[in-house]
């Protein structure tokens, strides 16, 4: 596995009320070796989490030290001790408001000049939607992602999963590490404001120009490509395949594969613009050849002819596929993303077990932040901090 000894000296504090970009960013920093203290307030236990919520929380808490605090002035002192030793504070909107309230401080970068403070929120800290609540789907709606996703006539559609939230988390990690680099020159900076909304706008690079150039908003075009033909999903006898054969060499090989080499010489289809103009005829020819063949047969032929394409798999099958395992995206219990990238041919560490709430309180405050033992025991006795032992049992989490 890959290690980054450099990061072991970095204390990162995460304060997040919801599963989102801040949680994911902190997980990535934990995976590369940072000591991540996940702050949990003693009164913050949620009673309405689903089984999926609990499993995700367990998964994304792995490798992090759980620090449990109350809301008293003494708890504020404990948080202050952590932030004076930390290099990065990652917060979502709820976490930012919680930290500001507990510390009675609105300007965290001013109070902690050596701390990189990064807010990872849905809509950012500015603008009329700054205070809006909601996750991935709400941002997809408001940022135009749903409007360009969909089959013609089927209406606007959300993209499954959390691609924008995950992207925002990666942008947050990059921004934090860049900020730490800049601080090496003696610079100080303000609060880093990363949002899922900004990630969604950044993801419109192929769609926004249609509006810029025409003044008209583009809409979902199903699985077609606006600049490349043939490029679509096709029904086979037992499922669907995707074919992306828009460039000329792929087009030539595809025509030969479907037994229609004469199409290459057809002047209507000789150029990309010509193929775009005659997309229906081309797709009819490809679709007719696909219809009675199995997905496996078509996929094998695509691979043999080095044509970009493949079957459309459910995640249920993806997670069982040798490719998924070769990339070491699961742990032994088949739960955890073990690697979002590989370094020197090895994935990042796969962490096992999420600490119970408060299981890292002493380690972070006493061992890492050098709070005197007597002071810590007073906080413990007062309920300003709490402790626990062991890891969460995911089956009963």
């Amino acid at each position, binding site marked *: 596995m890959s290690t980054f000894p450099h990061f072991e000296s970095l204390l990162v504090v995460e304060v997040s009320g919801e599963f989102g970009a801040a949680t994911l960013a902190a997980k990535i920093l934990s995976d590369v070796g940072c000591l991540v203290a996940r702050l949990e307030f003693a009164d913050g236990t949620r009673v309405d989490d689903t089984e999926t919520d609990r499993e995700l929380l367990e998964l994304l808490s792995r490798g992090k030290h759980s620090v449990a605090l109350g809301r008293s002035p003494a708890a504020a002192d404990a948080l202050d001790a952590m932030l004076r030793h930390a290099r990065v504070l990652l917060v979502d909107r709820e976490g930012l408001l919680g930290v500001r309230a507990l510390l009675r401080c609105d300007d965290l970068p001013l109070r902690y000049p050596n701390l990189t403070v990064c807010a990872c929120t849905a809509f950012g800290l500015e*603008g009329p939607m700054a205070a809006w*609540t909601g996750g991935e789907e709400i941002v997809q709606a408001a940022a135009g992602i749903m409007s360009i996703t969909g089959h013609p006539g089927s209406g606007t559609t959300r993209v499954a999963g959390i691609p924008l939230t995950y992207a925002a988390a990666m942008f947050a990690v990059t921004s934090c590490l860049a900020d730490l680099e800049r601080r090496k020159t003696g610079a100080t900076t303000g609060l880093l404001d990363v949002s899922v909304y900004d990630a969604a706008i950044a993801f419109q*690079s192929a769609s926004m120009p249609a509006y810029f150039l025409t003044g008209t908003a583009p809409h979902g075009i199903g699985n077609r490509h606006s600049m490349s033909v043939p490029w679509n999903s096709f029904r086979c006898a037992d499922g669907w395949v995707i074919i992306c054969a828009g460039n000329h060499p792929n087009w030539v090989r595809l025509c030969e594969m479907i037994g229609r080499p004469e199409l290459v010489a057809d002047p209507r289809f000789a150029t990309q613009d010509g193929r775009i103009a005659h997309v229906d005829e081309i797709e009819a020819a490809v679709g007719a050849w696909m219809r009675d063949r199995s997905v496996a047969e078509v996929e094998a032929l695509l691979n043999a002819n080095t044509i970009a394409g493949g079957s459309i798999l459910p*995640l249920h099958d993806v997670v069982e596929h040798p490719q998924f395992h070769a990339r070491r995206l699961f742990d032994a219990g088949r739960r955890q993303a073990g690697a979002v990238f590989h370094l020197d041919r090895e994935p990042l560490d796969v962490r096992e077990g999420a600490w119970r709430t408060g299981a890292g309180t002493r380690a972070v405050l006493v061992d890492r932040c050098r709070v005197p033992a007597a002071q810590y025991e007073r906080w413990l006795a007062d309920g300003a901090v709490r402790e626990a032992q062991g890891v969460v049992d995911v089956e009963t989490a």
Partner: protein
Amino acid sequence: MSRPLEGVRVLDIGISTAGPYAARLLGDLGADVIKVEPLDGENTRGLGLRYGDAGYLYHVNNYNKRSITLRLQHPRGRDLFLELVAKSDVVVENFAIGTMDKWGVGYAACREANPAIIYCSVKGFGESGPWAGLRAFDTVTQALCGLMYSTGKPGDPPLKAGPSVCDLMGAAVSSMAVMIAIAARRPDHGQFVDTALFDMGAVALISLWPLARRGSAESLRSLGNRHPDHAPFDDYACGDGRVMVTVTREAQWRALAPLLALPVEWSRPTRIEKRETVDAALSAWLAPHGAQQAAEQLQALAIPAAPILDLKQVAQSAQLASRKMIGTLRHPVYGDVPLINTPLATGEADSRGPWRHQPVLGENNEEVIGDLLGRADELASLRAEGVVR
């Protein structure tokens, strides 16, 4: 104020989106990104909607860079590239596996030229696994990672995301991984960073992993805008459009229920069981409202809701303006080009726009090959031999 990556030099030898956008993100942070293009230019210069003679993707993926032309298949081109590697910190490439080695500029050659080089290989399926050698575009990885299967309305064929999410997540993870490698670098210690669009597509579905682990393939098919574990959770018609409402917390339901004249004590399982009733009541409440007005009214009660906006509405929204995510760059050749700014944060409100315009093809040949490499006296012969344009 200085930019974080000032003094870091990046060679971008990518094409299309994943590699070039990753390199641009490093440029956004102040790195000196040198785009190495074939003599007829990188492919997106000729692709799709254009500003001037260059496709829009070229403009948006390649600002904050310099451009040189170099024919890597020629021995002199290869040697010049490796000389550049010796003067650089990072190489980003996203060609098919084996292509860089075939040209003599793969990781082994780059590391020989510069033992401390950070080499980022961006691939459809990464450098390992049975699919490593497959041809891949964003759409192919969306199909094979499970994303298309779960996107789309019930009863419809599988559906890809409108944006190239695997390409762009691949770019995001690549720039992040390079940033991590830069922060952790040691003298004379090269680092090989391996990223995959497939991995990122699969990771983007992390919220569905528990379902995939416990359930069947059928339970993941074409999820549409609903959520199997929550209600109300869907898009609904308003007087002038549609609004997305996603109630996932009991407190949100307690705020919403009085508006719908439904019992506040209905638990999540009850709401799922009575989904049709809940949806009908919410639809009836929303129908006379405008989408924006309805969303604002629900948000005032801390209920997650948003109008479903098209890109014209997004581009004209106050939220977009306040985020400064769109700007217009006055280009010396292409004129005014509207650009999407960086999603990275620097702590400075006005730092989102480009600090260097997107280069025309080979715009920086003289300053890079001539000045940086000290080969000014060879440029004429390099051009004559077809190594440089």
